[in-house]
C-alpha cells in the first residue's frame, strides 16, 4: 500500500462515519427540535433507530484515529497539537452524547429525569458536529503553519487558535450539522414509513426538505468564506479539472433528492441524500489533494513507515473478513422490516 492509498482509505472511513454516526448526531438534533402533535413519538422513533447501532457507527472515528497515528504519526502529532482545543470540545460532546443516551435508555429513572438526559443527549448531539466541522475547517484552512526543526521533525508553529476559529471553519461546522440533520431526517422518514406511521414519516419528510434548503445556503456560505479564509481549498474546489463535474453531480443528486422528497418517494430520497453527502465528502477529500493539512503537510511527508504500509493490507483484510459479515448481520437484523 502507498501513502495515497491510505489517504483514500481515510476518506472512505470519514465518509462512512458521516453516513452512519453523522446521522446519529442528526437524530439528536431532531430530538432537540421535536415538535408538533407527535413530539414524543418522534423522540421514540429516534431512540429506537439509534439504540442498537450508535456504538458500532462510532468505530469509524476510532478507525481514522488509529490509521492516522499508525501510518501518519507526524501528521497525527501535528494535527492533535494544533487543533487540541476543538478536539477536546468534540470529545466532551461525544462523551456527553453517548453517556446521556444510555442513561436515558437504561437508567430506570422517573420520566422527568429521563427527559433531562434526553436534553443533554440532544444538545451534545447538536454541538459535537459543529466542533467536528471546525476541525475539518482547521485542516483545510491552509492557515496552520508548520516548521521543520534541524532534525527534520515537523511542528505546528501558528499557535492553538489558528485555522479553526475563522468564519470559514464555523461555516463548515454549521454545514456539517446541516448534512447530519439531513441524513437523519431522510433515514427517520423511511423508518417511520416502514413502521406504517405515515404522519410521522411526513414530519421527517418536511424536515428533510427544509434541511436541504438550509444545507444549500450553508454550502454557499462555506464556498464564499473559503474564498477568503481558505484560498487553496477554494482553488482546489473550483479550479481543479475534476471539480466542476463533482460539484454538478452533488447538485444533481441534491435536486433529485428534493424531487424525491416532494413526491414522497422516501426510499429513493434516502439513497439520493446518501449519495449527495458522500459526494460532498468526496469533493472535500479530492480538494485536500493528498494533504493532511493544507498546504504543507502531504501524506508523503507525514512519517509513513514502509513496514507499516506493507503490513496494513493484511490487517485490514483479516479484520474485514471478520467484521464485514458481522456488520451486515447487525443491519439486517435491525434495519429491515
Amino acid at each position, binding site marked *: 500500500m502507498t501513502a495515497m492509498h491510505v489517504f483514500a482509505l481515510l476518506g472512505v472511513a470519514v465518509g462512512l462515519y458521516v453516513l452512519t454516526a453523522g446521522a446519529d448526531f442528526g437524530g439528536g438534533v431532531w430530538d432537540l427540535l421535536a415538535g408538533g402533535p407527535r413530539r414524543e413519538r418522534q423522540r421514540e422513533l429516534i431512540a429506537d433507530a439509534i439504540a442498537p447501532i450508535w456504538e458500532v457507527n*462510532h468505530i469509524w472515528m476510532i478507525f481514522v484515529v*488509529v490509521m492516522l497515528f499508525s501510518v501518519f*504519526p507526524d501528521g497525527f502529532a501535528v494535527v*492533535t497539537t494544533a487543533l487540541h482545543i476543538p*478536539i477536546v470540545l468534540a470529545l466532551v460532546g461525544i462523551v456527553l452524547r453517548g453517556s446521556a443516551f444510555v442513561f436515558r435508555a437504561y437508567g430506570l429513572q422517573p420520566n422527568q429525569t429521563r427527559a433531562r438526559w434526553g436534553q443533554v443527549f440532544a444538545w451534545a448531539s447538536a454541538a459535537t458536529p459543529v466542533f467536528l466541522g471546525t476541525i475539518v475547517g482547521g485542516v483545510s484552512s491552509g492557515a496552520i503553519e508548520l516548521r521543520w526543526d534541524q532534525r527534520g521533525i515537523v511542528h505546528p508553529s501558528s499557535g492553538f487558535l489558528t485555522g479553526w476559529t475563522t468564519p470559514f471553519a464555523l461555516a463548515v461546522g454549521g454545514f456539517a450539522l446541516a448534512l447530519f440533520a439531513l441524513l437523519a431526517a431522510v433515514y427517520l422518514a423511511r423508518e417511520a414509513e416502514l413502521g406504517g406511521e405515515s404522519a410521522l414519516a411526513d414530519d421527517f419528510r418536511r424536515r428533510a426538505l427544509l434541511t436541504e434548503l438550509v444545507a444549500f445556503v450553508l454550502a454557499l456560505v462555506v464556498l464564499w468564506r473559503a474564498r477568503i479564509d481558505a484560498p487553496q481549498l477554494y482553488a482546489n474546489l473550483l479550479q481543479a479539472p475534476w471539480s466542476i463535474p463533482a460539484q454538478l453531480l452533488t447538485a444533481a443528486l441534491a435536486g433529485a433528492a428534493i424531487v424525491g422528497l416532494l413526491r414522497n418517494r422516501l426510499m429513493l430520497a434516502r439513497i439520493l441524500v446518501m449519495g449527495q453527502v458522500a459526494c460532498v465528502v468526496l469533493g472535500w477529500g479530492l480538494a485536500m489533494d493528498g494533504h493532511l493539512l493544507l498546504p504543507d503537510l502531504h501524506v508523503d511527508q507525514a512519517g509513513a513507515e514502509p*513496514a507499516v504500509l506493507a503490513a496494513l493490507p493484511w490487517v485490514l483484510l483479516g479484520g474485514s473478513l471478520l467484521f464485514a459479515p458481522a456488520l451486515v448481520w447487525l443491519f439486517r437484523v435491525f434495519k429491515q422490516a
Partner: protein
Amino acid sequence: MVVTSAVARQDLPRARCDGEHSSGRKLTPDSSDHVAGLTIPIQVEYKGSGMDDLLAARSQMAMSLAFHILFAIAGMAMPLLMVLAERRHQRTGDPAALELAKRWAKGTAILFAVGAVSGTVLSFELGLLWPEFMRHAGPLVGMPFSLEGFAFFLEAIFLGLYLYGWQRLSPRVHLATGIGVAACGLLSAIFVTSVNAWMNEPTGFDFVDGEFTRIRPWQAMFNDAFFSQALHVSLSAYVAVAFVVMGIHAWALRRNPTSALHRTAFRLALGLALVSTPAQIVSGDLSSKHIARHQPVKLAAAEGLFETQTRAPLSIGGLPDVEARELRYAIEIPGALSFMTFSDVDAEVAGLDSVAPELWPPVGVVHVAFQIMVACGFAMLAVAGLGGLAWIDARWRGRPPPWERRWYLMLALLAAPLGLIAIEAGWTVTEVGRQPWVIVGYMKTADAVTPMPQLVVPFVGFTLLYVFLGVVVLVLLKNHVLATEGKR
C-alpha cells in the same frame, strides 16, 4: 542458580538496546548507570510547557485511564456472567436466571457505553497530551491498536445484537452473540495491553541517531512483556468484577435472603471468583519473575529494595525513605524475594542502586501501590477460598451454601471493592514504576508532552466530567439492583 541472576543483569541492556549495533554505541552492562548511557533520549527541540503542564498532562492521562479501566473491565467480565446466567436458564429453565441475564445485560449496556466513550477520549489523548510519544511510537503500537479496534467493533456489534435481539434471534444464536461479546472484550484487553507492554519493554525497531528505524510491527506487538502482562490484566478484570457482583448481590441477599435471582447471581459470581482468583495469584507470581529479569528497576521500587543484594528479603508493608535510601517499618523475610523471583534464596536481585537516582521512579508511590495490590489480592484469595469451603460443605454435608450464610454475605460485601482497588494500584505500579520513561530506555515522559499551555484546564474539566458520570452510573446501577429486588 547463579546463572539465572547473571542472565537477569544482562537481559536488561539487551532488551533496551535493540539497535545498538547500528547506532554504534557501546554497551556497558556492568556500569551502574547503563540505562542512562545506552541511548540518546529523544528530546523535543521546542518546549512551550513547563513542569506544571507536564504534571497536568500526566494527571489527566492517569485520571482518564483510571476511570476507563473500571468500565473496560466491566465490558470484559459482565458479558461472561450474563452468558453464564443465560446458559443456566437454557439448561435448567430457571426463570430467575433469565431475568438475571436481562438485568445484567442492561447494566452492561450502561457500563459498556461509558467505557466506549471514555476509550475514545483516551485514543485522542495519546495525541492531545503526548504527540511526541505518538510520533515515534505510533507505527510501532499501531498494529495492536488496529486489532483492538476490530475487536472492539465486533464487541459492539455482538452487544447490539445481544441487547436488542432477545425477540429477533433464536436462543442458541442469542447465546452465541453473548459469547461473542465476552470473547471480543477479552481480545480487546489483550491487544491494548500489548501497547503498554511495549512501552515497558520496547522492541521491534532499530534506534539510529535518535530515530526509530526499520520498524517491525509484529515483533513490537509480541514483545517480551506481552504475555505475562496481558494474562495479569485479563484475569484482573474477572476477579474484580466477580467480587463487585458478589458484593452487590450479598447486599441484596442480606435484605431479601430468599430471592432466587440474587442467589443465582451470587452463585455465578462466586464460581467466577473461585476460578479467577487463584489463577491471578499464579499469574502475579509469573509477572514478578518476569519483572525481576526484564524491568528490575520497577521491581526494586515496588519492593523498596535500594541496594542490589543476594539473599534479598521480601518486605511486607513499610515506607521507603528515599533520602536515607532505606525502607522503614517493614516486616522483612530474608531471602524470600530472591526465592520468589529467581527460585533461589541466594540469587542476586537488582536494587535501585543499579541505575542513577535520576532514573528512579517515585519509589514511595510504587512501593505503597504494590503493597496495596498484593494485600488486596491475598485478601480476595482468602474470601474466595472461604466461599469455596462453605460451598463444598454445603454439597457434602448439606449445610447451608455460602449465599445463605449471613457472615459470608457480610464478608463478600466488605470485599466488594478489593478487586477494583487492586486494579488501580496495579496500574499505578506499572505506570508510575516506568517513570521517568514513557518508552523505557528511549524516551522520557517529559519529552513526550504536548507544547499546549494551560493543560490544567482540560485536566480539571475532564475530571469534573468523569466524577459526574461516575456518580450518575453508581446511582443508575443502584436503581437496577433495587429494581431486581422489587421483582424478587
